[in-house]
């Protein structure tokens, strides 16, 4: 069922008020068989997170909280204390009450809902944050917060308001243990090892020891394998700000439109192997025990070798978002799904599964809700 696009102007003037996405739908409806499309008029939906009956949408135009039972939505932006409306990560605090938003240029936002209204606090460079560009936030079992930024990583242990509790990790102060200061993804395994996805490969922090891997170790498919699928994506997604990183690349043939070292997405699998989505180098599986990579590309059935998002479902199937649509991988076969139909765009930036069994896919303009059975 396609829904009317709700007016961004209306959102601006009612951003503090809950409202209904479906004008005619006030009661919870039976699960539809076909995908539902929520065109909210944003440039892109970068991140999706599910929490009970709530769906959190981090977009280029603000942070949305959607009640998936009623379709009521709340938009938070500048009027709610955010400095940047471009949200790159949404993380639920272990305390169950707090949300942490990583923003593009506006630092780290702490959101605590109080009586339906958010209380926002911003953490930035003066608090100890490396950079006001925050790409990922994760918590380890001890409650330490790990943050990926454009100037290295941070770890916050204890009271976040005390600067002494912030630790910085950069290429320089780790003696090049961290592959690159542009940290896009953080993952923490059951052994509490910290994995960092950067623009120059993957790094691992185990205790105080660093290890790192890049294309020379097998990360991302070689240019000879993907050459025919490399095309001009710079204008669509990248910018000149990546130019400085090209010189740091170790991969032969690396340029703006092909960089197998560039970790765009990263996810630990059920067996705790690391799955890495690269920029033009396809999907990489890193076997943590043997420390070897296996690469999957369009030759294996991927819609594209530019892998923007990764998400496992409860059956252990990996869902893969690319710049040319959606695929799934059950460990044996890669299948393409809804390459165009049902999705708002070919670009799949984000995915999540909600408790009601819906599969949510974020792309350009908005988000699509796919009933799980419809995936088959």
């Amino acid at each position, binding site marked *: 069922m396609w829904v009317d696009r709700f007016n961004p102007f209306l959102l601006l003037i009612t951003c503090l008020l809950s409202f209904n996405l479906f004008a005619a739908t006030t009661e919870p409806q039976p699960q539809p068989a076909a995908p539902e499309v929520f065109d909210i008029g944003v440039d892109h939906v970068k991140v999706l997170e599910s929490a009970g009956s709530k769906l959190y949408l981090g977009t280029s135009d603000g942070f949305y909280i959607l009640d998936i039972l009623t379709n009521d939505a709340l938009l938070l932006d500048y009027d709610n204390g*955010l400095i940047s409306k471009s949200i790159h990560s949404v993380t639920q605090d272990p305390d169950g009450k707090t949300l942490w938003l990583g923003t*593009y240029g506006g630092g780290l936002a702490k959101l605590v809902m109080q009586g339906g209204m958010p209380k926002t606090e911003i953490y930035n460079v003066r608090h100890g944050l490396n950079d006001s560009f925050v790409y990922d936030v994760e918590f380890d079992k001890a409650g330490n917060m790990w943050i990926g930024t454009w100037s290295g990583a941070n770890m916050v242990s204890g009271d976040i308001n005390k600067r002494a509790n912030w630790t910085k990790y950069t290429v320089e102060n780790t003696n090049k243990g961290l592959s690159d200061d542009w940290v896009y993804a953080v993952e923490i395994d059951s052994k509490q090892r910290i994995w960092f996805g950067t623009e120059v490969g993957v790094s691992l922090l185990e205790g105080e020891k660093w290890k790192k891997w890049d294309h020379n170790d097998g990360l991302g498919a070689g240019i000879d394998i993907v050459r025919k699928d490399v095309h001009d994506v710079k204008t669509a997604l990248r910018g000149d700000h990546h130019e400085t990183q090209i010189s740091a690349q170790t991969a032969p043939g690396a340029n703006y439109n092909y960089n197998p070292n560039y970790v765009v997405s990263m996810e630990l699998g059920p067996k705790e192997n690391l799955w890495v989505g690269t920029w033009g180098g396809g999907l990489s599986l890193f076997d943590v025990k043997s420390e070897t990579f296996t690469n999957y590309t369009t030759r294996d059935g991927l819609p594209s070798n530019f892998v923007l998002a990764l998400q496992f479902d409860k059956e252990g199937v990996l869902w893969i978002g690319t710049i040319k649509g959606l695929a799934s991988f059950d460990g044996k076969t890669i299948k393409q799904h809804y390459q165009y139909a049902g999705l708002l765009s070919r670009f799949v930036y984000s995915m999540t599964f909600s408790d009601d069994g819906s599969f949510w896919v974020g792309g350009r303009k908005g988000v699509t809700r796919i009933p799980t059975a419809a995936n088959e």
Partner: protein
Amino acid sequence: MNKITPLLFVTLLLIPPMVASADLQESLQNGKKIYHDYCSVCHGDKGDGQSFVRNVIKIPPLDFTDKKLVDQFSVERMRWAILLGKPGTAMPSWRFDLTALQISDVITYIQKELMGLELEEPVSPEAAIYK
């Protein structure tokens, strides 16, 4: 000796400007690196505020090349902004990351190369704000 004295006098006259120029060059070089490491991501490579982040932050980054705003960009005002940030905007405080000398170097670079002001000497790191 009489013939040499005027030459020595002229040489001595030339020395101070040459020293100042070397200081300025060094400051500009340092300031350029600091600008590109810390500032250009928001203010743009050319200082005109044209950057990716411009469209997603609450208050757009300042355009240092806007001649109408030159009077607002006094050294002290810039020093305060860099040191303490601008509350409610994306301009963070760099007080823990940049030294007084680094801040003066980046102001030197912004004023001379981006704002196009005539400078004969680098901006001094000495300022009341540090006392």
